[in-house]
């Protein structure tokens, strides 16, 4: 709904409802928000399909969303706002009616006591002044509009009197809850006057037109009632040396709009000439003999002048003001932050890829580490055991073909070990044989693993079996081949979970991890 193409109208209470409902939606989890809005979107699309596929324009879509999305309590609040705004409009009309009635009644009453009513004064006060006020209010709006399209930082203001100042008075008349809701709108205006300033300004302008229309209506009503229930005597006078002819031309020109419809409401030259009066005549105080028929002949003209020049323009401007308010509100609704995304949520398929359930418990690494020994310590322990030259004094088990014998001896710097394979392609029975071999022999046991592979439960099972077989006294060392510091720490933590105080880790220096494949392949080939 681009602003240029926007012809739809909305009510200010709908804008307030939208802001409140968006706030309410923002409080929901994003995924839930998207799901709920898409459900509404699908329901609307289903309705549209029933209408022959006619797609809703954005404002209609927003209205449908507003009909479905807000909670019951929010609907109640919105309804209160709607009623309050309607009451404010009624109040504006009532105030105008009262003022118009009071002004016309006061003027006519005062003049009645003065015997004659100055028709010029009536025209000025009851017709010309309201018409001038109308022009001023239009100029105010035009100025504000001009300012709005100006540079950044320009503030909308009506000849300096900002709508916000007027709106404070309007707010004071509202119930507390409604006031808070409306202040969400007005508060946003205060933040930047960016989006809702035009709505606020046009709302104030519309209210002022309701007052103006009420004023003109009250004036007309009071005049008619005075005409009906009192005997009004109109006349005109001037100190200037003015002939009746130009005055007649002037009033006849004024009466042009209604002359074809009501000729009797066009003052005749005779009426103009005969109703001119002077306070003094021929040097003596003038005593008037009022001819009620003649002097009352001005009333149709006055009534029509009020109706045509005060009331009708007001009603026209009021209709225009309400129309522009509706458009401004519609534009503000469309441009409200979050509406783009709301429309997208309504119209776009809901694509879900994430897990429905929250992540459950994840595996935690043990808190401790098995001790790490260095190669010198391990060799010293092995050497202390003595033994004949060339005879193995300990056992080595290579897990899953992690390394071949020669490479292992080279890295350990000794070949005094009996080396066996386990894990990998070996069967469980072969694993059991290795355990039995170790149990039958003596000396420490070294289990060689590739540290870049994770410690599997299968290996931990094997180590458990091995410990049970060799007894608690013999040293069991896990040689960590390759891998990085993080891998080694991971292994030491996992081994700690065995709860075996006689187990230690030995990081074997050797080829970098990138070369490990070659070592492993060589090991695999060798077996």
């Amino acid at each position, binding site marked *: 709904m681009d602003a240029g193409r926007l012809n739809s109208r909305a009510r200010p209470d709908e804008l307030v409802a939208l802001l409140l409902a968006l706030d309410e939606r923002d409080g929901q989890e994003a995924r839930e928000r998207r799901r709920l809005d898409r459900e509404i979107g699908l329901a609307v699309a289903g309705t549209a399909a029933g209408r022959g596929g006619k797609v809703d324009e954005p404002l209609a879509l927003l209205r449908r969303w507003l009909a479905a999305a807000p909670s019951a309590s929010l609907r109640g609040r919105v309804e209160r706002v709607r009623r309050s705004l309607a009451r404010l409009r009624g109040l504006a009309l009532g105030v105008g009616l009262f003022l118009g009635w009071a002004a016309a009644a006061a003027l006519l009453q005062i003049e009645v006591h003065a015997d004659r009513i100055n028709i010029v004064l009536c025209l000025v006060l009851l017709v010309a002044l309201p018409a001038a006020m109308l022009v001023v209010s239009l100029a105010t709006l035009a100025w504000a509009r001009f300012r709005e399209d100006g540079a950044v930082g*320009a503030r909308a203001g009506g000849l300096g009197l900002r709508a916000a100042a007027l709106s404070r008075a309007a707010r004071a008349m509202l119930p507390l809850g409604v006031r808070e809701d409306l202040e969400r709108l007005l508060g946003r205006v205060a933040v930047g006057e960016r989006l809702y300033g035009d709505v606020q300004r046009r709302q104030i302008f519309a209210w002022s037109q309701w007052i103006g229309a009420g004023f003109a209506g009250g004036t007309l009503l009071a005049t008619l009632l005075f005409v009906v229930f009192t005997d009004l005597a109109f006349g005109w006078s001037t100190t200037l040396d003015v002939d009746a002819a130009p005055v007649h031309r002037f009033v006849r020109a004024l009466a042009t709009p209604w002359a074809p419809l009501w000729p009797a409401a066009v003052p005749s030259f005779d009426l103009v000439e005969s109703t001119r009066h002077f306070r003094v005549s021929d040097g003596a105080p003038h005593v008037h003999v009022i001819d009620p028929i003649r002097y009352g002949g001005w009333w149709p003209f006055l009534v029509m002048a009020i109706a045509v020049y005060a009331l009708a323009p007001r009603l026209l401007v009021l209709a225009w003001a309400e129309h522009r308010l509706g458009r401004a509100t519609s534009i503000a609704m469309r441009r409200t932050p979050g509406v783009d995304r709301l429309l997208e949520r309504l119209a*776009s398929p809901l694509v879900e890829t994430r897990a429905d359930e929250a992540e459950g418990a994840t595996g935690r690494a043990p808190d401790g580490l098995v001790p790490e020994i260095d190669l010198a310590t391990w060799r010293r322990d092995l050497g202390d055991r003595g033994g004949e030259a060339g005879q193995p004094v300990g056992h080595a088990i290579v897990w*899953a073909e992690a390394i071949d014998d020669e490479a292992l001896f080279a890295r350990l710097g000794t070949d005094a070990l009996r080396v066996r394979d386990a894990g990998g392609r070996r069967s469980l029975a072969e694993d059991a044989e290795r355990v039995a071999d170790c149990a039958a022999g003596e000396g420490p046991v070294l289990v060689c693993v*590739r540290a870049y592979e994770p*410690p599997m439960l299968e290996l931990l099972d094997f180590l458990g079996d091995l410990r049970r077989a060799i007894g608690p006294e013999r040293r069991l060392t896990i040689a960590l081949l390759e891998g990085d510091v993080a891998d080694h720490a*991971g292994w030491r933590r996992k081994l700690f979970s065995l709860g075996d105080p006689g187990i230690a880790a030995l990081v074997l220096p050797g080829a970098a991890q990138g070369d490990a494949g070659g070592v492993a392949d060589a090991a695999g080939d060798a077996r």
Partner: protein
Amino acid sequence: MSEAVAAPRLAVVGHPNKGKSSLVATLAEDDSVGIGPNPGTTLRTREYPMRVDGELLYTLVDTPGFQRARRVLAWLEERAEASGATAADRARLVAAFLDEPGHAERFPDECELLRPLVGGAGILYVVDGGVPYGPEYEAEMEILRWTGRPSLAVINPIGRRDHVGDWEAALAQFFRVVRVVDALHADFETRRRLLLAFGELETGWRAPIERAIAALEASRARRIEAVAGEITRFIAEALALSVEKRLGPDEDPAPHADVLAAQYRDRLARLESRHRRAVQAILGHRELEADARALEWLESDLFSEDTWLRFGLRRRDLAAVGAVGGAATGGVLDVALGGASFLIGSLVGGAVGGALGLLGADRLAELRIVDRPMGGRLARYGPSRNVNFPFVLFGRARCHASLLLARTHARRDRVDLDVDLERQGPLDGADQRSLSAVFARLRRFAPGSSRHHEASAEMMRITQAILRRDEGGGPESP
């Protein structure tokens, strides 16, 4: 919203710590997936259903890794030998393994990962191409073969690609389809191709997978559009940003300059931070932590003074009122002279009235009514007028957005925006010119006005095009 019964299910299985969860997080665009350096992070299967408007199109199942594969295989082989089962009975034996009393306690990981396969899921077997092939993988691949489910292997090179070739050769013996996908850095196209490969695994899977891909592509396009909208909003707000302080008629605004400057920068920083969070939310990177240098300051003097008046009056308003009043007064003279003055009265009156209104603003500010001043001095900082200012902001926002668009949901490292900002390619000449024009319009017209709205729409289009181009060669490379 009903779920199709025949929607494909894919169980992501393999050795522990080989990137199964990373691959799932990337494919499901779910940054809540538990990913850790320690093996055995995943204890239970977790399902990631892909739905479009509630219709299930496929499901990814993340599983724990094999822990005792040889024991499981040994049980299966022993049972097959004992019962004289043929190859046709192997899938039934795997199901029997799950039903065997005590297995759920003894083989919890294997039971978790085999259950979806027995239930009809396809196999997505993940290995690490950064480490050498080892014989310990063969038992688990053999078990998977026993399930008889359609399978696909993914080589996920964690860190290095040294052994991808070896793995391809080994996996080809067990799997019909083998793909190399870096789970941490897979771009959208790579993910799309992998999904297409899923669709080829079994008859009837292609249609839902192709629909899923189309929905994912459309969703991604909408997200790029939403990100472009966020960037536009951020730049427009930053361009209009200013902070003001109303002072008394006799107060000197100058001492407030530093405070206002600090407030201005703080609000700009918060604006940028809010913008980044919004972009992260759109792209589903809620947990992301980013490092970035604060905005370097381009201008030293954005401070200005003005006059404020009650009722929102401004100097210009007073000048306008004065001009109208003066012109009206002059007009009376023109009328009195029967037009012989050729409207000189109106012109002179308007000029004099306007000037008096302009000059009278300060005097009015000093006026006190009911002991309240009618106005005073106004200290203001901003908005920025520097030509480069919006380009700097745009560059940072573009870098952030492009980085997140390229970033998979499997990554858990912090983002260093400064590094990526340096690697970001410059805007081409046409983009620079278009943006320069649109920035000028955003500055010129008041926010909320139709022209400002049109300029915002134009900037959004330009930004969207730039982000789409960036997506092809984003600043963050694997």
